[in-house]
């Protein structure tokens, strides 16, 4: 990263600190099928009454970033206005044959694979334009995936706030302690985006970290 870019970012952080900026553009990141869109839908529905995206168990269901502006979250006396960007799942490989295992026809699987590659690129481009990230991890999976390592590394390099969401706590194999052990330097909130459990704790953490 160039020195000028780094200084510009630091300047933006100082301006935010001095003037107490309370609006932030937050990206929801994570690997495919971690529950990003389920979480985005819950946040937006809870605070503005709308849905923003469809969900399914087929990976890469979200293949275009979806943005919802002006979501105001109030929690424990703190308030923050968020522009929320639900990003496509990040991945290092996309094989159309994996989609066929979910019952998609070959042509449809190929089309989805091509769109998924474009979605990953779009998610990466959004990293440049965010004030912070909710990194959604599947609590039942190994947290040391390269997507998690790369996203955490990028947020640390950019000195941007990162909140880890340990999702799928409704499943018996969920283990948020594994995630905490992998990334102890970042705050973590265990939730079930599907059932809404512990979601108030997440809103409180969002207001604290991004407000």
């Amino acid at each position, binding site marked *: *990263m160039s*020195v000028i870019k*780094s*200084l510009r*970012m*630091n300047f933006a952080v100082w301006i935010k600190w001095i003037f107490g900026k309370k609006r932030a553009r937050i990206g929801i990141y994570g690997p495919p099928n971690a529950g990003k869109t389920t979480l985005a839908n819950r946040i937006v529905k809870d605070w503005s009454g709308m849905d923003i995206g469809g969900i399914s168990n087929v990976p890469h269901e979200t293949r275009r970033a979806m943005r919802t502006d002006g979501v105001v979250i109030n929690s424990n006396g703190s308030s923050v206005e968020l522009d929320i960007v639900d990003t496509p799942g*990040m*991945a*290092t*490989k*996309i*094989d*159309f044959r994996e989609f066929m295992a979910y019952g998609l026809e070959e042509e449809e699987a*190929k089309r989805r*694979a*091509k769109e998924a*590659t*474009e979605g*990953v*690129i779009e998610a*990466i481009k959004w*990293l440049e334009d965010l004030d912070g990230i909710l990194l959604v991890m599947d609590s039942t999976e*190994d947290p*040391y995936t*390269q997507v998690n*390592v*790369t996203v*955490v*590394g*990028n947020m*640390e*390099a*950019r*000195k941007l706030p990162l909140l880890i969401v340990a999702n799928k706590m409704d499943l018996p194999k969920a283990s948020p302690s594994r995630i905490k052990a*992998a*990334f102890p330097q970042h705050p973590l909130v265990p939730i079930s985006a599907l059932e809404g459990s512990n979601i108030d704790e997440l809103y409180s953490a969002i207001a604290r970290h991004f407000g």
Partner: protein
Amino acid sequence: MMREVQMDLISAERLETMSSMEKIRLILNKVKRGNIVVLELGLTPEEEVKLIEMTMTEIRLDEFSGIEIESYPVKSESTFLNKILGKSGVKTRMTVIGPANQLRTVEKDKYQISTKVSVGD
């Protein structure tokens, strides 16, 4: 006939003389030929994300489905000078990269990466 897989272990000295794009091009060229690449000192987080982006542009449905990449979480070296200049002070670590259809991660933690390489038909 037994098939062989080439492994390229690239030294820190060589990596230090290369630009980000040179590193990414070198990695992708080797991986697309079916080689396994081990970097003594890995990529910065920005380079990793650029590698993923370039990989996505080069995926071809029946030829190249992407990469398997495994690195350790980066270490930050926080110094007074780095803080003043707003530099990250990121220390990169050993990284292994290979074709997604040949390299498979078996286990990974803070201290060890275990992978399996399939040689195919």
